[in-house]
C-alpha cells in the first residue's frame, strides 16, 4: 500500500441511493461459487496468487515471540521450495502479502522478518481490536505506538456506533470484519462491498482495497474469493496492493493442494512445515 487515498467530500446521498436486494445477492453468491471452477495448472497458479494475497495472521492471547517468529518464517517461505521449483516459480519471490499481529507483537514480527532478510510488511490490528469500543484518544495512541514499532499497515476497527448511526468515514482498504465475529467473511456481504468499491472507483477514480477475514480455511475458498474479485472488480484488483485475505490456517491447505498438484499424491501433515 504505497499511496494513500486522497479522499473525497463525504456525500451521504451516494449511500442513501444504494439499493441492495438481499435474496438476489444471496443467489449471486451461490452462483459465483459454482460458475468458475479453476483446474490443473490454472489452479496451481491461482493458489500461488492467493498465497501472495494472504495476510498471514495470528491474533491469539497467548502469542509469544517464538510463534511469531515461526509465522514470519512461514510468511517468507509459504510453499516448500521443491514444490515451487517444480512449478518453475521458485525465483518469483512468492511470499505472503504481510504478517498480521496484535500491536504488542509488532516488535517481535519486525525483528523476525529482519532476521529472515525480507521486507514483508507487518500489519497490526489496532484501535481496541476487536470491538473498537475504546476512547478515541487511546485508539490513536495505539496506532502511533504500532507504527513506531515498525508496523506499516494498520487494520482499524471502525467505530460501529458511528456507522449504525449513519456517520461514515473513508478508508484505503475495507475489511469484511475483524475475523472475531460470529459471522465473518461471507460471499453475499463481500458482493455488496465489492460493488461499493467499484462504484466509488467509477465516481472518483480511487481504488479501494478489499480484505475478507475470518473463516477462510480451504484452498477452494481462496479460489472462489479470487474469482469473485475477478468477476466483480476485474483483474486489476487481483493483487496484494488491493486484495488481501486475512487467514491463519488457509496457507496450510493451499500448500497441501500444491503438493498434490505437483506430486499427484495427497500430503500427510508432517510432509509440510507448520507455520
Amino acid at each position: 500500500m504505497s499511496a494513500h487515498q486522497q479522499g473525497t467530500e463525504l456525500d451521504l446521498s451516494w449511500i442513501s441511493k444504494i439499493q441492495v436486494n438481499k435474496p438476489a445477492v444471496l443467489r449471486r453468491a451461490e452462483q459465483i461459487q459454482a460458475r468458475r471452477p479453476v483446474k490443473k495448472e490454472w489452479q496451481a497458479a491461482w493458489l500461488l496468487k492467493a498465497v501472495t494475497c494472504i495476510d498471514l495472521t495470528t491474533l491469539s492471547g497467548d502469542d509469544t515471540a517464538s510463534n511469531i517468529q515461526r509465522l514470519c518464517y512461514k510468511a517468507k517461505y509459504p510453499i516448500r521450495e521443491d514444490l515451487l521449483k517444480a512449478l518453475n516459480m521458485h525465483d518469483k519471490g512468492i511470499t505472503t502479502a504481510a504478517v498480521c499481529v496484535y500491536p504488542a507483537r509488532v516488535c517481535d514480527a519486525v525483528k523476525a522478518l529482519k532476521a529472515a532478510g525480507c521486507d514483508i510488511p507487518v500489519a497490526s490490528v489496532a484501535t481496541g481490536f476487536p470491538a473498537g469500543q475504546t476512547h478515541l484518544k487511546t485508539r490513536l495512541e495505539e496506532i502511533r505506538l504500532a507504527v513506531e514499532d515498525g508496523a506499516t499497515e494498520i487494520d482499524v476497527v471502525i467505530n460501529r456506533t458511528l456507522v449504525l448511526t449513519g456517520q461514515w468515514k473513508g478508508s484505503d482498504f475495507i475489511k469484511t470484519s475483524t475475523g472475531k465475529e460470529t459471522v465473518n467473511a461471507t460471499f453475499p456481504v463481500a458482493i455488496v462491498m465489492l460493488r461499493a468499491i467499484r462504484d466509488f472507483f467509477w465516481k472518483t477514480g480511487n481504488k479501494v482495497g478489499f480484505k475478507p477475514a475470518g473463516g477462510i480455511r480451504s484452498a477452494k475458498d481462496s479460489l472462489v474469493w479470487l474469482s469473485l474479485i475477478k468477476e466483480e472488480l476485474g483483474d486489476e484488483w487481483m493483487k496484494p496492493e488491493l486484495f488481501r485475505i486475512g487467514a491463519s490456517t488457509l496457507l496450510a491447505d493451499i500448500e497441501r493442494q500444491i503438493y498434490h498438484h505437483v506430486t499427484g499424491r495427497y500430503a500427510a501433515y508432517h510432509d509440510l512445515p507448520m507455520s
Partner: protein
Amino acid sequence: MAATRTASRACEIFTTLEYGPAPESHACALAWLDTQDRHLGHYVNGQWLKPEHRSSVPCQDPITGENLASCLQAQSEDVAAAVEAARASLENWSTQPGAFRAQHLTRLAKAIQKHQRLLWTLESLVTGRAVREVRDRDVPLAQQLLQYHAVQAHTQEEALAGWEPMGVVGLILPPTFPFLDMMWRICPALAVGCTVVVLVPPATPTPLLLAQLAGELAPFPGILNVISGPDSLGPVLAAQPGVQKVAFCGATEEGRALRRTLAGWGPELGLALAAESLLLLTEVADVDSAVEGIVDAAWSDRSPGGLRLLIQEAVWDETMRRLQERMGRLRCGRGLDGAVDMGARGAAARDLAQRYVREAQSQGAQVFQAGSVPSDSPFFPPTLVSDLPPASPCAQAEVPWPLVVASPFRTVKEALAVANGTPRGGSASVWSERLGQALELAYGLQVGTVWINAHGLRDPAVPTGGCKESGSSWHGGQDGLYEYLRPSGTPAWIPYLSKTLNYDAFGLALPSTLPAGPETGPAPPYGLFVGGRFQAPGARSSRPIRDSQGSLHGYVAEGGAKDIRGAVEAAHQAAPGWMSQSPAARAALLWALAAALQRREPNLVSRLERHGVELKVAKVEVELSVKRLRAWGARVQAQGCALQVAELRGPVLQLREPLGVLAIVCPDEWPLLAFVSLLAPALVHGNTVVLVPSGACPIPALEVCQEMATLLPAGLVNVVTGDQDHLTRCLALHQDIQALWYFGSAQGSQFVEWASAGNLKLVWVNRGCPRAWDQEAEGAGPELGRRAARTKALWLPMGD
C-alpha cells in the same frame, strides 16, 4: 518434458490470471452411445425400435461437428406403433391406484439419480448447453418433478375426485429444447394415469435415454415412448386414433399451423409457444442484482429464448454501463466446460440471432457485443441491442437467443403499456425495491409468470404457462395436472372432422330474412343488448323466431360483424372496472340478478312453454338458473392461493385472473339454463362477456337482458342475436377476443378451432355434442370455473 511445460504454464497464468478449461469428461455419454452401436432408433414399448428402410440423420457435437451417432427418422408406421403401445398400456396404467403410480415415479426419480452423470454429460454434449446448468439445475429439477408428481399421484383419488385421465398424450418438442421441457410435461401426464408418446426432433438422444430408464422399470414398458422424426410427423401423431391430448411446444407460427391442421381432429391441443421473456427494471431497483437477472435470463443457458429489457429512463445510463461491463466478463465455450456461461446451440439458432441483429442494425439499432467468445466456432456472443425504433419490425418480432433488446420507459403506466404491447405473454420479472410499485406492475403484466427481483426461478409446485400468443397450456402445480385430466364420464374424443368444410365460406353469408307476419302474444324485448341497452342492429333487419307450433313468437334483431365489433368494444371498456371489483361485489351482483330472475319466473316459464318446453320442465329450468347464479356467486370467494416452495424464502402467489373478453355461443338445448350456466362462471371470474344466445330460442335470454340493463354495469354483458354461424365466424376471427366457448354444431366447432389460430385465443368447443346442462357436473362443474380464468404465478422472494 511434460512437467516443464506444465510448470512454465503455471508461471504464465500467475501473471495473466486467466481462466482455464474445466472440462467435464463425457466418456460415459459416448459409452452409452456405444451400447447402441452409435445407431439410435426409437424407444417404444420398453424396447429399442430400429425399423429397416428408414433414412437417418447424424447426431453431431454442435461445437466440433464430430459425428456422435446416427439417428433413425421415424415414418408414419413408427408413430402408429408408438401410439399403439401407449394405448395398449393405458388401460393397465390408468386403472392402477394412484399410490402405485406414485411408487413407479419415485423409482424413476431414483433411476435418474443413479445415472445422473450420464444424463448431464449426454445432454450437454449433444445440445451444447453449459453443463453447469444441466448438472446443477436441470437434473435436480427433473428429480424434484418426479417426486412432486409422485405425491400428486398418491393423493389423486381424494384431491382430484371427479376427474379422470384423458388417455394417450402426444407430446411434440421443438428442435432446441432442454430435456427438462419434456419432464415438465410427462411427469403430470404419467402421474394422473395417462400414457405418453413423445415426438422429438432427430438427433436428440437424451429423451431416448430417459425413455430407456423408464422402460427398464418393468412392468409398465409402454407408458413412455419416444420417437424421433421430422416435425412433419407432428400432425400425424396428433391425428392417430386414441390420442386425446396433444401438447406442443415450439415456435409461434408452427403452433398456429398445428392449431389449424388439427381443427376437427378431436384431441385437446395445449400450446406452449415462443420463449422470449421480459425484464422490467425500475429506478428504485438494485441495479447490480438486476444485471445478474439479465444474465440469468439471457446469457446463462437457462432460458431457450431472448429477453426484452425495459429500463426506467432515470437509470438507463447507469444500467447500460453496468450491463456492458458485466457482459465483458461472460464466457462462451464448449458446453462441457464447467466454467463457461454459455455454450453453442447449433447453426440454426446462431443464424436466427445473426439475422435479427442484421435487421435491427438496418433499422437503426445500436448493437453491443462482448464477452470471451472463441472465434473459430459456432458461437454467438452475448448481444445487447438498444435504440431500436419502437415501430420498427424488429421491435415487434420475438427476440431470439442470446439477444437482449433494451428500451427505455418513463413511468410505470408506460412500462405496462409497452410490456403488454406484444402478442406474447410468457414470463416477466420486475425489479423494484418498492413493494407497492412491484406489485402494481406484477398484477398489471399480461403474462403467466412474474418474478419480483429475481428471474427464471422454477419449482414443480408452481404452475408455469402463458397467455395471449404464448399459448395457454400449463405445466407444474395443479394447473399442470388438469392439462391431462377431464371430468369423469366425458366420452373419449373422436374425430368430428368434416373434410368438406370450407373455412372461407363458413358463416360468411347472412341469410336474408323476410317479414313473417305479426307477433302474437306479448312482444319480446327487441334489439341487441350492447353497452347496457337495447340497440338496433347495424343491418337494420330482423329474424323471425317461431314457437313449437311453427307460428311466429317474435322478431329478434339480426346481428352482424359491426354489431360484434361494437359489442367487443363495449366489453373491453367495461373490463377494467369489472376486474377491479372485489369478488364479494361480483357475487352480490350475481345474487341480485338471481333475485330478479326469480321475480320474472312466470314470464320466463311462459316464454319457454311457447317453445314446447313442458310446464314442469320449464319451471325446473328457471329454478336451476337461479340456483346457478347463486352458486357461482358463492364460489368466487375462494380464488387463488399462496404456495411455499423450496429454495425460496417468501411466498409464490397463485392468482386467478380473468381471461379478458370472453365470447360465448350458447347451445339450443336448455336455452335459458345453458345461457345462465355459461354466463355465471364467466362473470364471477372477472371476465366481460359477449354472448350469442340460442339460435332457435333466444327470447328467454333477451328477457334476462332486461334485468341486466338495470342491474349490471354497462358493457359487462353484451348479447347479440342473429345467425349463429355468421356470428360465430365474426367472433372466432376477432383478434381482440381472448377466449371463445362454442356450443353448437360439429362444423361450427371445427371452424372455431381453425379460426382461433389467428390470435390463438382459448377455445372450448362441444364438438357438436349436447351437454346435460341440468346435471351438476356438466352444468356447474369445476370444469367451467377452470376454463373461465387463467393462472398467474407471482414469485415474491423475501429478505431484508
